[in-house]
């Protein structure tokens, strides 16, 4: 890791100003993902701006929904009664991720910005279009066993966001509040926040240089209250998903009134499936409906040599999650 300077910012204005002065500086909150990237020489920053003193805290009910400060930790959000009651899938997505130590340190704003675990990205000795644009993507014909099958391109097949939390956020229409210099804020739906790789896989989000994630707002809904997050992985804890599903259903009298579906582990970004939702909405809550929805969700899959199993696995995961919520 390079030597770096460390500054603690007291306000958002101060933090954004510091980033403006040194564009190569980085914000640090929990540091659980940034320090890993720096130790592996994948990112280099001469200055770290500590944002932990910023007032991006609190979990509270507002008229727009549940508002969660971006500096809350994964464990605090995952265990918060309002989250557990109103958004069980969001709570589960946090508590099934990482390890207790990491969840106690990691901020949820940082979680949204974590980067791919693709082995070709994580080892600077490999070519990687995401790390070094134009250098190539050996994953296309190499070890793609746990890489994405939806939204991928010839440039990149990474699960750009490898985690769980944003998958649940994608399902339940979360909106991010972002802040640039001079206190200027804007709202961006989570589903517009990530960018597909196309031929610019190094550009991962719409976050502008120096912009901070302030808060996440989750609109309350019946389908969010009746929700679950199901995660399939090769070991029972401390592993990224091979496939996961965040689903919410509002079922009345056996008919699905509203449905939300997002998949993890299979998409180049957290994969909201409106195709699946269209099939579910208004249909009877039966296995046949769930199977049809799952088939629709994976319709556009483009598997490579070693990740073809994910088509079936993701479908089965989605069906199981829907069954669990409908039960």
């Amino acid at each position, binding site marked *: 890791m390079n030597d770096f300077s460390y500054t603690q910012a007291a306000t958002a204005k101060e933090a954004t100003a510091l980033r403006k002065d040194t564009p190569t500086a980085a914000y640090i909150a929990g540091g659980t993902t940034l320090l890993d990237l720096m130790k592996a020489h994948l990112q280099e920053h001469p200055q770290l701006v500590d944002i932990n003193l910023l007032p991006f805290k609190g979990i509270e009910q507002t008229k727009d929904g549940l508002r969660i400060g971006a500096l809350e930790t994964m464990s605090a959000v995952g265990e918060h009664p309002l989250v557990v009651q109103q958004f069980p899938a969001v709570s589960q997505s946090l508590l099934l991720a990482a390890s207790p130590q990491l969840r106690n340190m990691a901020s949820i704003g940082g979680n949204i910005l974590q980067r791919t675990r693709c082995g070709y990205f994580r080892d600077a000795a*490999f070519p990687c279009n995401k790390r070094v644009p134009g250098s190539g993507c050996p994953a296309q014909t*190499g*070890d793609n066993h746990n890489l994405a099958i939806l939204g991928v391109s010839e440039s990149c097949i990474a699960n750009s966001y490898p985690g769980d939390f944003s998958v649940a956020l994608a399902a339940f229409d979360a909106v991010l509040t972002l802040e640039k210099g001079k206190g200027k804020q804007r709202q961006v739906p989570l589903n517009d926040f990530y960018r597909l790789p196309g031929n610019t896989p190094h550009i991962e989000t719409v976050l502008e240089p120096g912009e901070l994630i302030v808060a996440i707002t989750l609109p309350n809904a019946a389908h969010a209250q009746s929700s679950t997050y199901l995660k399939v992985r*090769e070991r*029972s*804890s401390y592993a990224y998903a091979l496939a996961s599903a965040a689903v919410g259903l509002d079922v009345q009298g056996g008919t699905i009134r509203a449905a939300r579906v997002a998949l993890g582990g299979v998409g180049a970004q957290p994969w909201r499936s409106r195709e699946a939702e269209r099939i579910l909405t208004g249909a009877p809550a039966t296995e046949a409906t769930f199977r049809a929805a799952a088939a629709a969700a994976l319709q556009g899959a483009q598997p490579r040599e070693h990740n073809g*199993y994910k088509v079936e696995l993701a479908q089965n995961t989605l069906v*199981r999650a829907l069954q669990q919520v409908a039960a």
Partner: protein
Amino acid sequence: MDTEPQFFETNATPGIVGQPLSRVDGWAKVTGQAKYSAEYNRLPGLVHAVLKTSDVAKGRVTGIDTSAAQRQPGVVAILTHQNLPKPVKVPDSQVNKGTLNSPMGFFPMMTDEVHYAGQPVAIVVADTLEHAQYAAALLKVTIAAEAPVSSYLDPKAQRYVPKNVKGTAGVTKRGDAQAAVAGAPVQLTATYHHATNHHNPMEPGATTAHWEAPDRLTVYDTTQGVSETQKTLALMLGLATEQVRVVTKYLGGGFGCKAWVWPHVVLAPLTAKAVGRPVKLVLSRQQQYTGMGHREEQEQTLRLGATKEGKLLGIVHEKTSTTSPWDDYAETNSRIINMLYALPAFESTYHLAKASVMTSTSTRAPGDMPGSFALECSMDDLAYQLGLDPIQIRLLNYAEKDPTNGHPWSSKSLKQCYAKGAELFGWSKRNPKNGQTRAGNTLVGWGMATASYPVHNSQGNARVRLYADGHAVVQAGATDLGTGTYTIITQVAADALGLPPENIRFELGDTILPSTQWSGGSTAAGRVSSSVYLAAQDVWEKLIKLAVRDRKSPLYGAKAADVVMEKGRLQLKAKPATGEAFSDIMKRASLGDVEGSAQGRYGSVYKEPSVVADADMNKEEKEAAAGYSMHAFGTHFCEVHVDPELGKVRVTRWVSVMSAGRILNPKTARSQVIGGAIFGMGSALMEQTVRDPHLARYTNADLANYHIPVNADIPDMRVEFVDEHDPHVNAMGVKGIGEISIVGVTAAIANAVFHATGRRLRSLPITPDKVLDAMRQPV
């Protein structure tokens, strides 16, 4: 010693041997006082060395731009193949072939050659670790890359049958197995695949080298054998053995990868020589994957012939695996297949392909672990095909003597292990048909397999110094891999000296102590305990001699052979009231302490020391000379839940029953078996290192992406031992348990998956993708 040493019989009064004593080094470890090899930080002028390794798997170094690195603060030196001092001898020099305790037939940084990704190409030395790491990252190494071969599966790979692999012939034949299988009424053929596995010790490889004088080197190293490392370093650096001291007080796991001398162990003293200061070199976690070997990826085809009743007639075994460009290395899977059952004919062939990788190496139960997977799955197939219970097929083929040489076993309690395991598990309630039991969304299955591991010959020395105040120092240059050597030897010394264990200090891990062989091949417990026990007998012999000549002693005039030691008191065997405390004898003789020493032997060299002296004998001949075949045996039973839609296999119940001679400490022994079985569960269900098929570089060389089991993967585990009295293996009657605990584990799990699903998965690890694929196949 003048008299024949006695076999260690269980004390008439209960001693500490056999008791579940907690680790004597536990306190030092949990309080941070235990000093590991990378923690000798107070050496004068210590600097840090960091390896710069090759990005590509094959090629030649054409340039190293050191300018940016050189400018970094704290940088002391940058060494490359152009300015690194050369070793006097390298492992591939014909002169020393076979005498160096190193699996490398190639030593890096001698020339511009690059043979594997991760090969050291430069070394940066700086005042702090952080400075060295960052400067190493700034080094720009240019390599003219050539197309590598990634594994035996690479279309470019050329397969061949080696003359020898690890002392075993490339082709072995016992009887006419081809004809036996071809003519057998029941024939089975199956191919088994294994992914590359890594040892992943918690403590990475680390070497601290300190030249105390031009002819005096001290090395603090992460090694399973200080003596072997000492001899190898002496040879390679052109020193006499006594001029090199190697210290390993604590080891954070070895599992076979620390049993050998790897490049960094030699590069550290060469670097220290170059900079004239003590140097600490620690492998990064990623470098651990290319710096200290691995279990090679491999496939095995097993052809089995049996009678209609299920009696084995012959087995033909073929293995294909990857080796490095310079070695013919393969773990010897055929050993266990050859000996585990009453098998009249056997043939095995090893095929190798050279690829651009570091040589693979011993990994927990090398050979026997993967060999047992193929054999024990095939035995399960045979049982199902003939409608027999898996235990029944094994009893039907029970080897009452060693089928490879006809010798009796020194001891074998496998039948008792089957019976006890079956009872503890509730095996009698097993549904003989597979695919019959559901629990919620999962299919439930039961499986079992046999375990075995040989008693390898080894020998070593120990010294015991008994003080008149009732304390003792016990010494042997052994290594405690973290498995409990400190503890069990303290127990043995306590009983042998009649002292409470807190009065014993056992010192190990240093070449200034009496030399003993490495801790590997499950030999340490038997060898070191025997050495220490015999050294204590030497002490008593000296004291008895003293007492019977001392007019003031109640034992005066007695025959030495009539005197025995009982809890620190020397007394007449026939008249226990006549005697005195050892301290009284020593005080009258003005002796502050008495020292004894002995050589302990393990395996067939124990009873017949001459067989080890004859170096021309091969292993079989040595065994023949000794007259007994010596193995530990055991069995594993397990239950799995398989989710056929999500592909997840979960082990839900586990029973291991082992018979391994005398169990010195059931607590540390149980921990060993639990650890070995979990290691096996990892291999069965999740562990795999993947090399890119075109670039021959690992894509998951870290503990986030190489999955070892976590607590949530492991059920409650029942581990039991069957008591065994074996007077042939060594003076303590101990067989090792380090390796046997993993043998058979992968097969037990795969057999349970078969019972659950009706699908036979023969490719490890059994990950969700493979389960889903299998579930699509017809039963």
